[in-house]
């Protein structure tokens, strides 16, 4: 059972999509099928969590020959790092399906199924060609969802995200192929397996260039400051489920990539880029936050917010001590939960008011107290309030930063201030004050409460009792990467 479990988790949504497509399933069946597949994967992931051994390193591995001439294998596996992301994906999908329950466009549902396979596969792949394949697969549904179902300048914006991301993927592909070739030259056999390629002895110069190839892809995905101009337009145009996946999962995959492949393949040369990335991350932390202050569009504001926090996560990885690493890994999870909740609330805001422009909102608190509670709760989570998971993560990163150097410590502690600025002004203008329109709006429905409550509970649990979760991560963090 355990041998196939990861593959089942990866391919179940895709198979479901193919099956439903071949059947030309009517909308109701399609919805039921998608929900069924997401619930099944969630159950399987629960099973994986139960069987997971924190001290076991890479586990649940499956290795099958695939394209033997080129040494490409189908190999997947899971450790603490991928477990975090896998759990998030499995948890968010059913909630997103619940969110889009009334969605009647079939393509939307197919894209979500494909998206799940793409992101899950990227998280679990241990073969670089396989990873690359999934990495590109997850971009397709995003392209379609923004271009076809988005709003605003949707086609321009979807083109922009795809072109910029592909620029990164191409440089990564080049690095992958070149490494495979070197492996062939030194051993006489082709392989693209992570563990085989990690054994190559590279010259410093070529290693620096190859690392750059990977880092470019990840820097665009995160995005680090300077590689970010796709972000706000894409977040602004994308439909809510796509935004949630982009912010909660795909941006984190950039960080995941640095962790898995950066440390996995180039542990020796990565330090060459450490000063650059720490600088970019610290600039990004403040740059995005300050940019967010005057942003009027809520989706874009939280796109920048996401960029700011992702910069902090990236910073934590490069600080290379257990506090910062623990903080980054923890932040991946808690920020995903908080931003998923926030973007769902923004989606709900759009459904209610037909606008996500701050200037057209206001006075919601008088009319819809439950709405206000959830909205404010997720916003405060993003501001890193104690009692929510984000606080634990930020605290760990700040301590880790001070461990590494005083200056980095001070600059990373500004995260206490930066998020606060845009969050509290936003709350003031969105929820409170006098109402701009007299129309009555409905408070959250039971369905909406049901879809948001798991996020609230998890954010509180991660904030109040981190000791429930940290033991899953600690052995691997102590072991280094």
């Amino acid at each position, binding site marked *: 059972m355990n041998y196939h479990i990861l593959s089942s988790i990866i391919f179940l949504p895709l198979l479901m999509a193919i099956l439903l497509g071949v059947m030309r399933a009517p909308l109701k069946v399609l919805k039921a099928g998608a929900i069924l597949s997401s619930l099944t994967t969630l159950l399987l992931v629960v099973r994986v969590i139960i069987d997971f051994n924190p001290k076991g390193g890479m586990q649940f591995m499956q290795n099958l020959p695939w394209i033997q001439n080129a040494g490409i294998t189908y190999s997947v596996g899971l450790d603490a790092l991928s477990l975090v992301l896998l759990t998030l994906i499995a948890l968010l999908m059913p909630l997103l399906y619940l969110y889009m329950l009334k969605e009647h466009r079939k393509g939307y549902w197919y894209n979500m199924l494909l998206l799940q396979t793409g992101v899950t596969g990227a998280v679990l792949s241990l073969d670089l060609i396989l990873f690359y394949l999934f990495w590109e697969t997850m971009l397709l549904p995003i392209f379609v969802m923004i271009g076809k179902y988005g709003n605003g300048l949707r086609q321009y914006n979807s083109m922009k995200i795809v072109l910029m991301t592909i620029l990164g993927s191409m440089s990564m592909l080049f690095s992958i192929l070149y490494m495979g070739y070197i492996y062939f030259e030194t051993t006489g056999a082709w392989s693209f397996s992570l563990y085989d390629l990690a054994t190559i002895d590279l010259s410093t110069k070529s290693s620096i260039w190859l690392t750059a190839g990977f880092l470019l892809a990840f820097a665009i995905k995160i995005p680090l400051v300077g590689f970010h101009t796709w972000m706000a337009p894409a977040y602004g145009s994308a439909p809510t489920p796509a935004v949630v996946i982009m912010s909660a999962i795909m941006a984190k995959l950039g960080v995941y990539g640095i962790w898995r492949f950066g440390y996995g393949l180039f542990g020796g040369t990565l330090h060459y880029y450490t000063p650059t990335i720490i600088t970019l991350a610290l600039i990004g932390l403040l740059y995005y936050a300050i940019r967010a202050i005057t942003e009027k569009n809520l989706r874009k504001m939280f796109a920048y917010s996401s960029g700011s926090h992702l910069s902090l996560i990236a910073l934590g990885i490069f600080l290379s001590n257990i506090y910062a690493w623990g903080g980054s890994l923890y932040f991946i999870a808690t920020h995903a939960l908080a931003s998923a909740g926030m973007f769902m609330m923004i989606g709900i805001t759009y459904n209610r008011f037909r606008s996500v422009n701050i200037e057209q909102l206001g006075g919601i608190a008088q009319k819809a107290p439950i709405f206000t509670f959830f909205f404010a709760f997720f916003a405060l989570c993003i501001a890193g309030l104690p009692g929510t998971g984000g606080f634990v993560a930020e605290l760990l990163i*700040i301590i880790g930063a001070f461990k590494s150097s005083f200056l980095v410590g001070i600059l990373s502690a500004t995260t206490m201030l930066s998020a606060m600025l845009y969050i509290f002004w936003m709350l003031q203008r969105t929820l409170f004050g006098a109402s701009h329109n007299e129309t009555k709006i409905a408070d959250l429905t039971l369905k909406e409460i049901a879809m948001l409550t798991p996020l609230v509970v998890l954010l509180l649990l991660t904030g109040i009792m981190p000791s429930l979760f940290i033991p899953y991560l600690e052995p691997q963090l102590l072991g280094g990467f």
Partner: protein
Amino acid sequence: MLNIIVTLPFLSSLLIALIYLGNTNAKRFVLYTSLGIGSLVIITTLSLMSLYDMMQGAATIHTKLFEWIHLGDFQIEVAFMADRLSIIMISFITFIGTLIHIYAAGYMKDDAGYGKFFSYFNLFMGSMLLLVLADNPIMMFVGWELVGLSSYLLIGFYHQDAANIKAANKAFMLNRVGDFGFIMGLSILFISLEGHGFSFDAIKANIALIDYQTLTLIGLLLFVGAMGKSAQIPLYVWLPDAMAGPTPVSALIHAATMVTAGVYMVARFSFLYIQIPDIGLFIASIGAFSALFAAIIASYQSDIKKILAYSTMSQLGYMFIAVGLESYSSGIFHVFTHAFFKALLFMGAGAVIIAMHHEQNIFKMGALRGELKLTYITMFIATLAISGIPPFAGFFSKDAILVTAFASGHYAIWTIGTLTAGLTAFYMFRMLFSVFHARKSKAQRVLHPLPKCMTYPLIILAIGSTFAGFVGVNGAYGGENFIAHFLQLPDISVHLSHSSEYMLALLNVSLALFGMTLAYKLYGHRAKEAQPDTLFKKVIINKFYIDALYETLFMKPLLSLSRFIATTVDMKIFDGFLNYSILFYRVLAGQFIRLQNGKVRAYALYFLLGVSAMSLFLIYKLGVNL
């Protein structure tokens, strides 16, 4: 027991919140009141029982709820500690908190958000108790931030008015600036201890590991947190605006409890601060300066709650003088007495405001002493107490602080403190006489009746304001300074002959009486609002333009920077780079299109050029002999 004291308010807050969100329109006065006040009565009883035990000589209590985090050597527990310092704190916090809850039940009775109010109020109590009882600085910081959150929620309680939310934002943001310093201090402290544990006991035991310079930095950064929370210069500007919240909130949070957290923190870290007397002196100077500064502004304010807010800031200044000069127990003693009379003043002010149909300008009141007899008498007692008239509570605690300043040779601080004492009496009696004595304005008025639950707590607090000082009577007045002996804090020992102490006290009291007389002369009969007619008055009435200064120094540049990033850096530089590279390809493509023009003669030309180039290459480069 401590576990119950801290968790019960949180639980009742959560329960009330859930019930309230279930149906926000339902009137559940009895349910909310019994949940909100009931939980407080329980924890007050428990706290007083613990206090009694400890007075009988019981040892420090440690309890552990669960492990919070364990990552490498970063091991933090949700654990509580009640030593003598924290037990004093929670005793009066829960006791006065309960009284204010009862008062609030009357004050907020008809408010649609009654349930919400009690949920926030209990959330605050839980957070405050967490702050005080925390066994390690991280848990203290959690409480520290959560009291800030509850303060934000309560200041912005009437959220329909954008001004209130602005005030709430200001409070939260300035507090967070302080917290920014606090968390840096904690992080450096943790790193410097090199994994020797992070409970207060462990820090105290290993404090010698840290060199003097680092300790100075840590002490300074932690104090930045206190500046924010306890509204000291330069982070004080939120406190006057915080009066936008309902009056019980001001009484509980912005007078008796939360704002004193900074003083408590310094006392809690007294083992650290005694090592760095330079920072102590800095703290005392900030305190002295804040005390005087706030007193000057208070003398020109017209809003009853703002006068009290500035007076709170001023009294907090005294407390920081005490803890800065390493007289920790007299600082805590003043926290203790101040809680009684300041809560009483706010609650009295709230009663007046309700009676006057939400009028807050003291110059529009006047001659209320006949109609609001009980409020008048109790507020008079509190004003005597805050002015330092013996034998009321404030006399003993303020006297202890000034004696320390004098005896330890800090004459500048002592002078400021003494002057401020006189000024305090002046502006407090100015308020009291304007409200209760001065001739009333001509307009007819019908007072709003006050419920009993709003007036009876005043009596209890008046008793406290009268007698609370007796727990700290020092040798000069025939007492044993019970509170200082009980607290066992590492106080500086100062020696001053009894006769000098009497001289100092005499000076203070005569200054206070002078201020009182002056106030009566000016405001006892005919109260007139201060007019900004001279430059001097204009500057003070506009609070030295500090708000405007902050606005120009911080907010405006930040907003411009944000717009600059949006319109220039993002659009022109980052996007510009992309767009120009696209443009470059476009132009290039345009040029290539020209080549492919479909004309045979052009193609024949390319053909000729190509063949010629090839021939030249063959001949000159490769040396082919034709």
